């Protein structure tokens, strides 16, 4: 029996647009074992971001069932899902999503502070040191470059020691060099902390570095296979 951290069972998602019913995802099912790194790829409009939102409990599926970290998130309230994310989930976004009025350190501390962790400051400083920003802790996001902002974002994502980390195009807004550095950091931390990694990306080179690749097309899974290195 596989120890799954994320299970999707016959997931469908549709939106009503005007008088039309728009089916974005159809009959999606898969299991992600703990510790695995997975990439979700596909052309624009294939439903990748919608799927990520559903997996992380940011949105509700129209049909089907999702289990995240041993919990059926379907019937859970928004607050219960928020608590679940706070404890077990990390996020990295394409546009970093740092709060401009908080310093780098304060941004990283948020998940730990929400958990009431007394060591929030120490852990966050260590993580910022780990991502190479020990000397930029008191800088505001606008005083940092894109790559630095994404490193703060990664430090924040790992600050609560998540069991699973979702990354939405984590290198999409970065140049090639910086992107590579961020990828390396992401995978290193993933291995170090035994975190499950789910990455949505266009970048097939990045996808190839994960253990498994799920390819979407027209809202359905076109391909679900383990990579050579997986």
């Amino acid at each position: 029996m596989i120890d799954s951290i994320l299970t999707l069972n016959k997931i469908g998602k549709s939106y009503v647009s005007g008088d039309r019913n728009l089916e974005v995802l159809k009959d999606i099912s898969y299991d992600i074992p703990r510790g695995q790194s997975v990439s979700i790829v596909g052309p624009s409009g294939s439903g990748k971001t919608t799927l990520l939102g559903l997996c992380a409990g940011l949105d509700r599926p129209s049909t089907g069932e999702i289990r995240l970290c041993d919990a059926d998130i379907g019937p859970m309230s928004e607050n219960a899902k928020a608590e679940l994310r706070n404890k077990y989930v990390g996020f990295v976004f394409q546009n970093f999503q740092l709060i401009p009025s908080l310093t780098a350190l304060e941004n990283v501390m948020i998940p730990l502070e929400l958990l009431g962790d007394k060591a929030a400051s120490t852990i966050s400083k260590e993580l910022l040191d780990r991502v190479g920003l020990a000397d930029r802790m008191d800088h505001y996001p606008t005083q940092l470059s894109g790559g630095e902002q994404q490193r703060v974002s990664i430090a924040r994502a790992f600050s609560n020691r998540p069991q699973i980390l979702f990354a939405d195009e984590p290198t999409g807004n970065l140049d090639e060099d910086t992107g590579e550095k961020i990828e390396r950091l992401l995978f290193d931390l993933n291995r170090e902390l035994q975190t499950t990694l789910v990455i949505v990306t266009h970048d097939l080179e990045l996808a190839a570095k994960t253990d498994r690749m799920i390819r979407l097309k027209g809202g359905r899974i076109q391909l679900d296979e383990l990579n050579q290195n997986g």
Partner: protein
Amino acid sequence: MDRLGYLLRLARQDSRRHRGKLFMFMSSITLGIMALVAINSFNYNLVKDIDEQTKTILGADIQVEGKKPLTPLLTEIMDSLPAEQALQVEFFSMAFMPKKDATQFSKIRAVEGDFPFYGELVTQPKGAKDTYQAANTLLVDDAMMFEYELEVGDSMKLGELTLPIGGRLMNSVGSISLGASFAPTVYIDKSLLEKTGLVQTGSIVEYKYFYKTPEDFDREAWDNSAARMQHFHAEDFRVTTIEDQKRNLGQAFSFLNSFLNLVALVALLLGCIGVASSVFIYIRSKMSAIAMLRCIGMTGRQAFLVYFIQIFVLGFIGVVIGTILGSGIQMVLPLLLKDMLPYEVDLSISWNAIFQGLGIGSLVTCLFALVPLLSVRKVSPLKTLRAGYEDEASPRDPLKILVYVAIVLSLFIFLRTLTGEWRSAGIFTAGLLVAFMVLYGFAGLSILIKKFLPRNWGFVWRHGLANLYRPNNQTNTLIVSIGLGTAILTLLYIVQGLILSNVNSMDAGNQPNMILYGIETHQKDKIAMMTEKATLPVIQQVPIVTMRLESWKGRSKKDWLQDTTSRVERWVVHREARVTYRDSLEFDETLVEGTYTGKINPGDTVFISLDRGWAASLDVGMGDELVWNVQGTLIPTYVGSLRDIEFRSMRTRFFILFPEGVLEEAPQFHVLVTKSPSKEVMADYRRDVVKAFPNVSVVDLGSILTTLNDIISKISYVIKFMAGFSILTGLIVLISSLLLSKFQRVKESVLLRTIGAKRSHILKINATEYALLGSLAAATGILIAIIGSYFIATQQLDLEFSLSWWPIVGIFFLIVSLTVFIGLFNTRDILNRSPLEVLRSESA
């Protein structure tokens, strides 16, 4: 527990980059609270002083007032009081000053006894107030002495008697009245009154009896004895105790109070709209941060608390600043209002007003901020993945509905405490809601302009207009706040203009400007001749007979007064009627029912004509019987016709009109109305008349009009000052809205400039946007003001409604220009700096 400590810290951290912008948010509520506290402080001090100063205003513990001396029965009642007594006989008369060969219409106060008992007359020399009675001298109003260059020791002639002036009168005891401004006061000892020959049959004289009771005397119990008071009412005497006086003063100022409070309420409401709109824009700018916080595990409630704490703390600081400023501003109000107050209002810090300001301020800030803040709970974390994601339409948030209900309810309760009546509070609340809805409605309708704007209109026009509908642009809020301010200002202008033009029309053209009254029958023809000799027209000459109602519709006056269900208004019953007789109606009278019988023969039924409103106040109609007591003779009459009287002309008018053939032999005096072409002619004529007929009074209507004008312009100045608060708040809402939505404007302008728009294009687009915004708001506000002033003028003030358009057009352009100026001023750096530089600095 929501980890309150961390949430507080996060709230502080999150706000630090925006505090400058949020200052604008604070300033709108600061202004509102400032107005509220200033006005409340002033009101509290006014009421406190009424309590403290009533004794000195009345001058005694009990006052009995009537148009004749006390009857033996009443004298007996009053003599049984364990009290010191004094009497003051008051009337208007001419005072002649031989030194200047001039006359002045004056108020004569003939005093018997040591009045006032409380407070004191201030005279120069100081001792004059104590010696003028014994020394047979006069105390004369200081301003009058100054005007006629009189000195103590000069003489003054009152009627037949010439007396030296014993002192200058520097103050006035007794409540202030309009009369004091155009008829200065002269004090004389009562024992000399008869020798002046001024008090004769038909003279209008007030007898005021004053009593100083011992400390432990129960005035209220004495005053509340219905049986005792009936004797006074039956003889048309009014009894006033200090307690009554307090109530009267309180009532007299409750209008001023309510008005000022309403102005404060409007300023406060605009401040609240400012809060709601600023918070709305602020929260919009925080959407992505909120979504991210939700994404990484913050609950909706926690996110809400972070922003609620920020807004509440900043709002509270705004409220505290407003309270401090308001306490300071109240010092200005007595200066503005001093001519309308009977005494000097002490300026002291009113803790009541301060705590009320803090309480109300915090409550309304919370309530109005909650409207946009509640949506924070519902921000979807999905916005982190898709910036354009719109929250799914959900059924109406019950909490939001609760907040709206709480807002309307607190407005209603606030108005209830203000007006003291549920009904008025309901009407005001409904009125304000309607005004808001009209403004919002027009803001909504403005979308039609966009829809129907011809496509071939220029790029600048289309863009300027489109900008109004930019998301987060707060067009509706701005139209409401600027529109409401405009409405108040315009309403004040229109109503003030109407009052002034109605007053001025009395003085215009061929309207009379001089009235002679107190003419005895044998003097009538001589004075008419004297008038014609002075080449002045005799515009009206009418006889006046004073009489009292004895009974009507078959019931005696006593019966009517005891009937608690009757709709009869007491002032009509108690007032001594001044009646004239003639054979026809005059041009300013319109018959509305029946026919006017101009002349009757002895023994015929007497049909009289009544003013329609007066008849309604007495609850009588066509054919009803009224019995009059004319100096002891009872005359039965019947209502033969009802008239409407034009009250705007400066002529004598009579509610009750008798036909010829009834009153010719009754004791009477005459009034003559004339018009003098100049002040000099008037002064000469007046002097000649008073010299020949000392008992005749000559009233200069021009000076009454000047006094009225003066008072109205002072009131309107106060009103404008207060309306300024509202306008200022509206403009602050505009500035804060512009500042908070600046980044969006910058991005659009940068985009336009990047794709080739010139600086002038951007300037024109922005100017068009603000001009449209200002025009919509001002036009809607003016429309509301016109409708509102029409109702106030015709329903409340009974004035003829007319509009002078130029000031209104002026207000319209003023508001539009201010809007455009403030708008462009706040976006000037977009034009003056390079697009990239602006974008970089703004995103930082």
